[in-house]
Every structure is written in structure tokens, then in C-alpha cells.
């Protein structure tokens, strides 16, 4: 097997130093957990974050910023609800702008989590174990942010529950032909399944935290949510089945949710929205933005909490490859949209796309193209894929680009539609900006709390990817590495090729 130092490097701060494990050795599995040969090293490394007396200073700084933005969000949302949707910059043709842009943006961000946890699980991509936990957490928090916007953007918020098919005295159902209603079902299903999937995966790790906890509150809290997990063989069996089933349930959701979100646009007849390419294009874009957000979060998190041996450079390199691939898909979609608009021969369709690139919002279009299509091409170079500062910057660029993509689709199409006499220009107000930043604050706050109190890496799962989890591991003869708090479970034990 791979060369893992069998004893800890003295003088090395575990988890805080970069090791390049991106080289591929033919015939050998790449090492995914570095500098560890004992399972309890993993446990200790992950749990120390939740168990430490106080988190690093950077955590406090980030938390203060995020929490302040949540305050801003509260102000903006209250102002909106008490005054009217007019506090946003919306106008007559542009009835949706930042609200739905942010909604689609956050739903898109949410996609990487389920892709990593479900699809990569079914495809037996073991490197997912390093990042799946916090990518799933990111998904849940992103969907919370996404769900906020359709909720508050309606004119009469207090009646928004009419969107749900609740039996009522009016004897009215929602209108099932409306894509907005499909959205309600798609997003709420997605949220519930993601939350369940995340929680089920957390149970063994919560039990670990419970067992290690020294304070009564921690013991109670972790114990409550660990649901009496004892790590018995039967528990593991049930757990594996449930996890597999949930993965199978989530997999179609990865594709369906953003397809349904894209129906909001594709089903309408507005030029620039009424486009059959939208479902696959939106899914590719969602995975693109989701992975960019995972990189944006992983880079500081692994630095802050010393997880570099588990979220290794190889993980980041893999994600950057996915960003490159999906970025190319998105670029293909952009050009195909133009081609179809021209090929359709439809006057309004052609104008919608020419106007995107050269009309009053040309700058937004070109920000989108340069951020989503041009700059990700740098990831063809391995040096760039493995350079922490550059990949961090590029991931931010992709996030910006994908926000602008939604803005371009929504606002440019609405602002200049069929009748030139109703054309207008959308200008955001401070409430638009505040709500958008506030949503980032909400996301950040939830994510930072997650980092502080829950295991950021799937402890049980990642152990299974270590060579020591393989019953045929040569080291067993003289070294009992499996003496960690939990028996290393190996659902698909690596019978090494």
C-alpha cells in the first residue's frame, strides 16, 4: 500500500501542514488520510474542534461578521414585511430581481452537498468522505437561505402558506400547473431528504462525541441526538441500509430540484426564459457553483481547524476538476443559447440574447462569462488546481459569476421583453443589497456554528477509506491499528485492487 509514515512525524503540527498527495501511482489507491495510522488519530483530530475550550480567533472574527449580517437581514426583512415589497427596487416589467436571483443562487449552492454525499457514494468515490459532511451541512444551510427568499418575496407574506396544499375552509387547492408550486414541492422535498441524509450520517459521529464528552450538557445534547447509538453490529447494518437508501433517494433529487427551479423560467413564455436547455444547464450550473462554494469553505476551514490531513490537496484538486468540467458545460450552454436564439429565427428570442450581451446589462453578462467560462479554464493547469490561494480566489470568482448568471437570466429577460413600451431598468435599493448580504450572513452563521459544535468530517466513514480498514492490510501482522474508540466499519471494505 501507499507509504504512510507509521509513526507520527515529530515536530509536525498535525493537520496544519500541506502535503501534496495529488500524484497518481498506477495500480495503487491514492492515500486519502495523511500522516495517520491509527483510527483514533482521526477521531481526535476531528473531535478536538468541538471539544476545545475556545475556537481559533478567526472563528470569532468570522462569526461576528456573520452574526452582524444576520442582524442586517432581520432589519431588512422586517422593513420589507411591514412596509411592502416596494422597498426593493422592483418595477413593472422586472417583478423579480434580487429575490429570485438569490433563491436560485442558494438552491444551486445546495447541490454540491447532495452530489458529493449521494452520487459520489453510489459511484464509490472514496474521496468524498473527507468533504461530504460539511458539504451536506452547506447544502442544508444553503437551502435554508434559498427558502427564505420565496417566502419573503411575496406581496402578502402572511398568506404565503396558501402555497402549500393544506385543506382549508375556502376549499381551495393551489394551482398545480404553476411551476412555483412545483418549486415548493421540489425544494421542500430536497431539504427534508438532505436533512435526513445528513442527520443519519451524523449519528455514529454524534455517539463518538457523546462518549468523549466531559460536560453534562454536551453529554446530554450529543446523547439526545445520537439516538442511543452503541455501535453494535446490528446498528451498523441498519445504518448502512438506511444510508444507501437515502443516497438512492437523493440522487434523482440532485437532478430534479434544479430542473424544477429552471421550470420557473422555462415554462414561462418570456424570451430568454422560454428555453428547453434550461434543466440540464441549471443542473450543471448548480453543481458548478456548489463545488465552488465547497472549495470556498473548505480552504479556510481546513486551515482554521487543522483538517489538512483529511481534506487533502487531492480532494481540492478533484473538486477543481469538477469545477472545470461543469464550467465548460455551462459555457457550452451559454453558446448554445445564442445559437438556438439565432437558429429559431424568432425576433424576440434573438433580441433577448443580443440584448443580454450588448444591451443595458452588458456588464452583468460579461461578468458572468468571464467568471464562469473564462477564468475556470485556468484549472486545466495542475499548478493552479493545487495552489491554495489561486483556487480560493477562483472559487470566489465562480460564486460571483454564478450569482450574476441568475441575475442576467432573470433581470435582462424581464427588463426588455415583447413590448418596447414597457421596458425598464432595475436598480437595487439598499434593502436589496442588505437582504442579499444578510443571507450570506445567515449561511455563515449556521456554517460556523456547525464547524464549532459538530464533526466537520465524517469520522466513521473516513476511517473506512484508510488502508488500515482493509482486513488484508499487511500492517495487521504486527500492529493493531484498529484500537480506536469505534471499530472501523467498512461498508464496502477496500479490497484493494
Amino acid at each position: 500500500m501507499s507509504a504512510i509514515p507509521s509513526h507520527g512525524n515529530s515536530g509536525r503540527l498535525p493537520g496544519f501542514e500541506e502535503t501534496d498527495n495529488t500524484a497518481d501511482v498506477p495500480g495503487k489507491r491514492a492515500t486519502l488520510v495523511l500522516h495517520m495510522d491509527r483510527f483514533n488519530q482521526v477521531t481526535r483530530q476531528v473531535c478536538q474542534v468541538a471539544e476545545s475550550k475556545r475556537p481559533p480567533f478567526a472563528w470569532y472574527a468570522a462569526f461576528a461578521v456573520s452574526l452582524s449580517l444576520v442582524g442586517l437581514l432581520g432589519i431588512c426583512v422586517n422593513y420589507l414585511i411591514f412596509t411592502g415589497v416596494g422597498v426593493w427596487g422592483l418595477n413593472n416589467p422586472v417583478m423579480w430581481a434580487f429575490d429570485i436571483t438569490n433563491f436560485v443562487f442558494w438552491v444551486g449552492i445546495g447541490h454540491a452537498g447532495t452530489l458529493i454525499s449521494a452520487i459520489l457514494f453510489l459511484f464509490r468515490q472514496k474521496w468524498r468522505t473527507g468533504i461530504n459532511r460539511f458539504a451536506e451541512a452547506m447544502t442544508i444551510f444553503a437551502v435554508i437561505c434559498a427558502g427564505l427568499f420565496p417566502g419573503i418575496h411575496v406581496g402578502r407574506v402572511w398568506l404565503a402558506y396558501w402555497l402549500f396544499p393544506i385543506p382549508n375552509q375556502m376549499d381551495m387547492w393551489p394551482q398545480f400547473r404553476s411551476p412555483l408550486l412545483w418549486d415548493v414541492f421540489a425544494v421542500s422535498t430536497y431539504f427534508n431528504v438532505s436533512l435526513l441524509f445528513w442527520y443519519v450520517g451524523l449519528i455514529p459521529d454524534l455517539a463518538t462525541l457523546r462518549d468523549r464528552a466531559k460536560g453534562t450538557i454536551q453529554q446530554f445534547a450529543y446523547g439526545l441526538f445520537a439516538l442511543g447509538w452503541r455501535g453494535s453490529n446490528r446498528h451498523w447494518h441498519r445504518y448502512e441500509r438506511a444510508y444507501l437508501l437515502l443516497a438512492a433517494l437523493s440522487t434523482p433529487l440532485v437532478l430534479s430540484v434544479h430542473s424544477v427551479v429552471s421550470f420557473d423560467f422555462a415554462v414561462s413564455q418570456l424570451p430568454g426564459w422560454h428555453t428547453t436547455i434550461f434543466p440540464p444547464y441549471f443542473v450543471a450550473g448548480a453543481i458548478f457553483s456548489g463545488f465552488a462554494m465547497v472549495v470556498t469553505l473548505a480552504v479556510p476551514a481546513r486551515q482554521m481547524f487543522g483538517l489538512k490531513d483529511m481534506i487533502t490537496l487531492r480532494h481540492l484538486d478533484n473538486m477543481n476538476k469538477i469545477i472545470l468540467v461543469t464550467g465548460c458545460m455551462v459555457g457550452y450552454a451559454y453558446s448554445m443559447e445564442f445559437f438556438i436564439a439565432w437558429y429559431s429565427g424568432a425576433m424576440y428570442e434573438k433580441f433577448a440574447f443580443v440584448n443580454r450581451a450588448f444591451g443595458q446589462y452588458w456588464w452583468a453578462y460579461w461578468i458572468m462569462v468571464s467568471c464562469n467560462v473564462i477564468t475556470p479554464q485556468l484549472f486545466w493547469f495542475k499548478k493552479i488546481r493545487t495552489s491554495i490561494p489561486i483556487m480560493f480566489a477562483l472559487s470566489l470568482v465562480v460564486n460571483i459569476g454564478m450569482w450574476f448568471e441568475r441575475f442576467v437570466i432573470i433581470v435582462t429577460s424581464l427588463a426588455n421583453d415583447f413590448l418596447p413600451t414597457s421596458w425598464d431598468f432595475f436598480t437595487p435599493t439598499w434593502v436589496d443589497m442588505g437582504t442579499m448580504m444578510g443571507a450570506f450572513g445567515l449561511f455563515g452563521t449556521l456554517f460556523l456554528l456547525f464547524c464549532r459544535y459538530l464533526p466537520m468530517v465524517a469520522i466513521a466513514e473516513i476511517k473506512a477509506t484508510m488502508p488500515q480498514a482493509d482486513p488484508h492490510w499487511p500492517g495487521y501482522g504486527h500492529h493493531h491499528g484498529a484500537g480506536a474508540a469505534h471499530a472501523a466499519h467498512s461498508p464496502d471494505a477496500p479490497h484493494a485492487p
Partner: protein
Amino acid sequence: MLDGRFANIGWMQELPDPVTKITWDNALLLSPTTANRLGVKQGAMVKVTAGDRSMQAAVFAVPGMADDTAAIALGNGRKEVAGTIATDAGFDAYPMRTTAAMGMLRGASVQATGDTYTFAHTQDHGSIDAALIPSVPHNSVQERLPTLVRETTLESYRHHPDFAEHAVHVPHRLSLWQEGNLDGAQFRWAMSVDLTTCTGCQSCVTACQAENNIPIVGKDQVKRGREMFWIRVDRYFRGADPAKPDGFAVQPLTCVQCENAPCEQVCPVAATVHDSDGLNNMVYNRCIGTRYCSNNCPYKVRRFNFFDYQRRDPIREQQGPMQVKPEYYVETGPDEWLRMQFNPEVTVRMRGVMEKCSFCVQRIAQAKIKYKNEWAKAGGTASGKPNYSIPDGAVVTACQQACPAQAIVFGDLNDPTSKVSKLHAARVSYGLLEELNTKPRLKYMARVRNPGVDHGAGGHGHDHGSGDGHGGHANNGTQNGAQA
């Protein structure tokens, strides 16, 4: 405004100028060529001087103006205590007016002061300089204009009476949905608008506002593009050069009451639905304000209550959007009489709901009640079916009632002898954007013009159907002093 005596009427202030579409202000109108030569942009403040008299006003370059000529409407810009609405609305042109020539002034000069002013207009938002700079959108407007406002000359019409049918060619009209079946309906209300006789005066707009309890929203909201008119009069300049248009077209537009309405398909709570007469109705009580219907409306005739406009003080500019004065709804107090201005037949809409033209459904209902009662009294109930009829012309919409050119006709398509049936059957009758399979109930009679011989000299738009149609605009020309 006439001479200014009507300047304190909110409806007058918010009614857009028929050509510039400016609300709440008047402007010093220049031709785009002259504005470019003077180096002033839209909204630039200028000082107009003639002898020892001078005034300041903001410039609005409007295609079709004669070069080296400036014009401004009287009646705005009242400084004295004129009321909350009139005070400071626009610019006062009276200082330039002398008894020597009441409506005319020669030898004035125009100089930019360097300040700028923001107009609130209901068209050309975001392309404020469209008149000055040819652009992608302008070219596209010209491309689609022949299909939107179909017109021809009398000469050509004699040879091609079917010209309006061929403006757009649509091979297939397929529906994603099973369309609502309106066969066998007792009534099929419809409207016809004659583009040949419409002058663009916009009295329909104010009539509709009065009938349907439509609020004025103030200058700041118009600037944001939130005017609430249920009927609007679209204005187009025709021609490749935006500064020198070949023609001018107006087109009144209400909700066209699509039989196959895009708005209905996307509303998640079924707040906009068809009734059996084929009307596309808004159910205000059911509307939660997702605004999706407006996004999917190709005509953009839907209006959203971004604030509680009915409760807000109808002054020119609100101090921030927060200001909401619930004065109309107080049970007692000095302003109770304000509530009496509302038409009791029409719901007053609250914030957060969408609204739009209803084809004056309250007037239809009144007519139905009247004729159904007569029918019942005459023993019609014996048949068991409500087979009463409403005579043609018994339902008159507010816009139709106010139209001085009688360009708007309303009636029942089920009655083959009704005027609207005959007009809809005419060859020049066409539906706006009907290629989208919306099946509009509002149809236009394409415009047939009989232009005179152009004698060359002046050369600018000879086709001003509406120039001065409304509200007593007095053109107070200044002339010739423009310094290059």
C-alpha cells in the same frame, strides 16, 4: 393643467404627456439634433434667456421636434401655495411670456447650468438617451414595430386590404395545456380599438383611473416604474434614425383578456382565473403577490401594489418608502370624506396584490342584473335557463365612454350583430402578439393613413396625431438663439 389652475389634481400630474411620457413635470423640449449640438443630455438643467427675462428648466430631447426650437408647457412649476401636489411640480414658463406674443418668443438663448434633473416617465425607462444614441434596443423596436402597430397608407390599403393579416406569419399554434373551453358561454365580451381614429389623447387613462379606484403613486414611484394605470397609451417613433423619426404611432393597451392567458397558468394560488364569459379575472382576496403572472404577461399590463398606495398621502414625492398614512381608513376624522371618492362598485386593493384591467366587470355585472331582472319579470324564468340577452351598447367601459374619437368599442361576440363582432370580423382587425397563442379578446383595427404630399421644406414628422391633445398644453416657443 390649462394655465395652471388644474395643477393640483393628482390625476393630471400623473397622466403622462402623450409624446414625452413625462409625469409630474413639464420640460423644455428640444429636438435631439439641437440637444446634441448644445451638448446637453436628457435632464440637463438649462437657463433660457431672452432679453432681460430668463427661466430655468430641464431639457428633454424628443424626436420630431423642429430643430432650433424649444417648447415648454405652461401651468407647471407653481411656487405659491398651490397645494401639496402642484407646488414645485415642473418649471414655470410664465416669466418668458409677454403680451407682445403670448405663445411665442424669438431670439432666446439656451445655456446649460451644469445641474441635472430627473424626470419620471412611463416609457423609455433605462434608455433615457435612446433618442440621442442609436442602440441595439432602438433597432429592435423598429424591427418589431410593424407587427405591433400595423399600419398602411390608403393607397396601399386599396391594393392590399389584407395587409394586417400578413404582418406576422405563424405556422403552428400549439398549447401546452388543455385550453379552457369557452364554447357555449352566454357572453363573450370583447373590445376593439381603432388605431386610425385614436389620437393618443389618453382621456381613457384618467377615465379608467376614476372608475376603477386606481391610485396615483407619486413621482418617485413613477420613476421606479410603478405607475398603476390599467390602460396605457403606448407611443412609438418610427424610423431608423431615432433623432429624425418618419412617423409616430400610438396604441392604447389594456389587459387584452387572453382566452388562453399565460398569467393564469403560472399563478400558484389560482388568483387569476377565467369566468364563463371569457373574462380573465383577478381575485384580489386570493392573490398573495408572487408577481409571476406579470412576468409571464407578454403585454405587461398587470400592475402590482408595491405599497399601500391607496393609503398613502397622494403627494408628489414621499419622504422615503416608509411613509404610510392610513388616513383614508380612519373611522372618524377630517379625512373621512376622502373615502367617498372611491367607486363603491370596485374593490380598493391593498398592498401586495396584483391588479389589472377587468373590462369594467362591475358595469357588466350591473347590466346583467338589470336585464336579468327585466327578463325574469317578463316571465323568462319559466324556461329554466338564464337565456336573457343584453342589447349591444348596454355595457360601456369607462375608457370607451371617455374616448372622444370613439375608437374603443365594447360588446358581446356571441351577438353576431354587435358592433364589436363586426369589427373583429374585419380584415384589418388583428390581435397584438397573437402569434403567442394568447387569443386576445382585445383586437385592434389596423391603422390606415392618408398622408398628404410631403412638400419637403420642414421635413420632420408630419404625422403628429396627438401633438397637443390633452390638458391644455400651450406651446410657448422660443427660437433661434441656440448657441452651438
